[in-house]
């Protein structure tokens, strides 16, 4: 594997070289197109450090922005759910994604207005998705809200969320105009962890599919305490949208370096180097159907 992370000038293997690496030896047809080195710069950070430039150069780069502590807490919890103590992806997790990215908004335009009954929060958010690479394909996108401490635990809350995507018209104003929007209402119970995930996959899919680097959205959040199903009166506006939401992207990285859960399963089936353990915990990509088909196959063979 160590040869995979590095561009080498190797005639026999036909690997390409970056133009400035002893290009004199190879004919120009084999040079990498200009700019690929920049793409190379977007290698996942771990591989970038493991590649030929080494950790020192990594530390000498621009200082790293520190993430929001809530966001960090959330991702640590996700890590514990997805990987064992040794850091190996849990085999029981049959999730399709092999990459999850959490972005906090990099700029906000806050509008806040209050009327008699409701406490309406409206905020413009700008997310910069530069770190998403061309080989990371979107599976799901979620707006992640966290409640502040003033909300009592296991209280019932009804919220209406108004989401709109903004396009910059080139008049240069800071808060651009609205292009398309969506409104939906949520009803949920505030649990101990106080996170609410709002699935906005279908809403953001067209933007992310067109590799949009900056996503500008306005989020209008209105929450009232009470449970409409049990006909309790909606009262007591809730102070929920003080912390702007983060954007969570579940992605499938198709690059060679990323772990492809299904490949390794297929590989194991094709080359059972060791006798297959009856009780091994196989992650079943096709669900129970597959077990049946295996059972049928065995009985057919027996017949």
């Amino acid at each position, binding site marked *: 594997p160590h040869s995979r992370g590095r561009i080498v000038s190797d005639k026999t293997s036909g690997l390409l070289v970056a133009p400035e690496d002893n290009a004199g030896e190879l004919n120009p047809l084999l040079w990498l197109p200009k700019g690929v080195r920049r793409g190379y710069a977007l290698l996942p950070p771990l591989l970038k450090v493991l590649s030929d430039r080494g950790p020192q150069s990594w530390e000498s780069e621009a200082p790293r922005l520190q*993430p929001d502590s809530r966001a960090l807490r959330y991702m640590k919890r996700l*890590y514990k759910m997805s990987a064992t103590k040794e*850091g190996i992806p849990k085999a029981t997790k049959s999730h399709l994604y092999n990459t999850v990215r959490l972005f906090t908004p990099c700029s906000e335009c806050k509008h806040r207005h209050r009327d008699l009954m409701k406490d309406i929060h409206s905020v413009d958010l700008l997310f910069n998705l530069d770190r998403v690479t061309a080989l990371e394909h979107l599976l799901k996108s979620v707006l992640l809200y966290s409640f502040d401490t003033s909300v009592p635990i296991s209280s019932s809350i009804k919220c209406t969320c108004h989401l709109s995507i903004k396009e910059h018209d080139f008049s240069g104003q800071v808060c651009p105009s609205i292009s398309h929007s969506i409104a939906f209402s949520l009803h949920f119970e505030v649990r101990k962890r106080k996170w609410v995930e709002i699935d906005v996959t279908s809403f953001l899919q067209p933007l992310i599919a067109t590799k949009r680097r900056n996503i500008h959205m306005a989020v209008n959040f209105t929450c009232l305490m009470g449970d409409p199903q049990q006909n309790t009166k909606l009262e007591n506006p809730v102070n929920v949208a003080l912390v702007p939401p983060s954007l969570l992207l579940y992605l499938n990285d198709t690059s060679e370096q990323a772990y492809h859960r299904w490949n390794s399963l297929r590989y194991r089936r094709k080359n059972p180097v060791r006798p297959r353990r009856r009780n091994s915990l196989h992650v079943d990509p096709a669900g129970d159907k597959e077990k049946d088909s295996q059972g049928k196959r065995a009985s057919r063979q027996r017949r």
Partner: protein
Amino acid sequence: EENLKEVPVAPPYNLSEYFKQFLFPQNECELHNFRLSFSQLKWDKWIIAPHRYSPQYCKGECPRVVGHRYGSPVHTMVQNIIYEKLDSTVPRPSCVPAEYSPLSVLTIEPDGSIVYKEYEDMIATRCTCR
């Protein structure tokens, strides 16, 4: 009785180790443990999890006849014969990893965003000769 005379005397309490040297050849190709922590590399500022990483490594000599025990391809035996009979500048087969397991890593990106990613082939789990 004569054989016994030749056998080296080992302290009784280490009998299992003593007999092991007759069962398994010494220094043969096998997987060795190696564990590091990212703080040793000063990477823990941006690698949030895992704290420790056990890549392991393969070390040892490759026996002449590797066969099914290592799952080595036939070419391995051919290379052995080339080394022994035709050209000793051709190296003997090497002891290398044959199977890996992935590793999940949680890192902070330069722009402050956080990424969870599962990397392929990060922990050697089995060795072979080839």
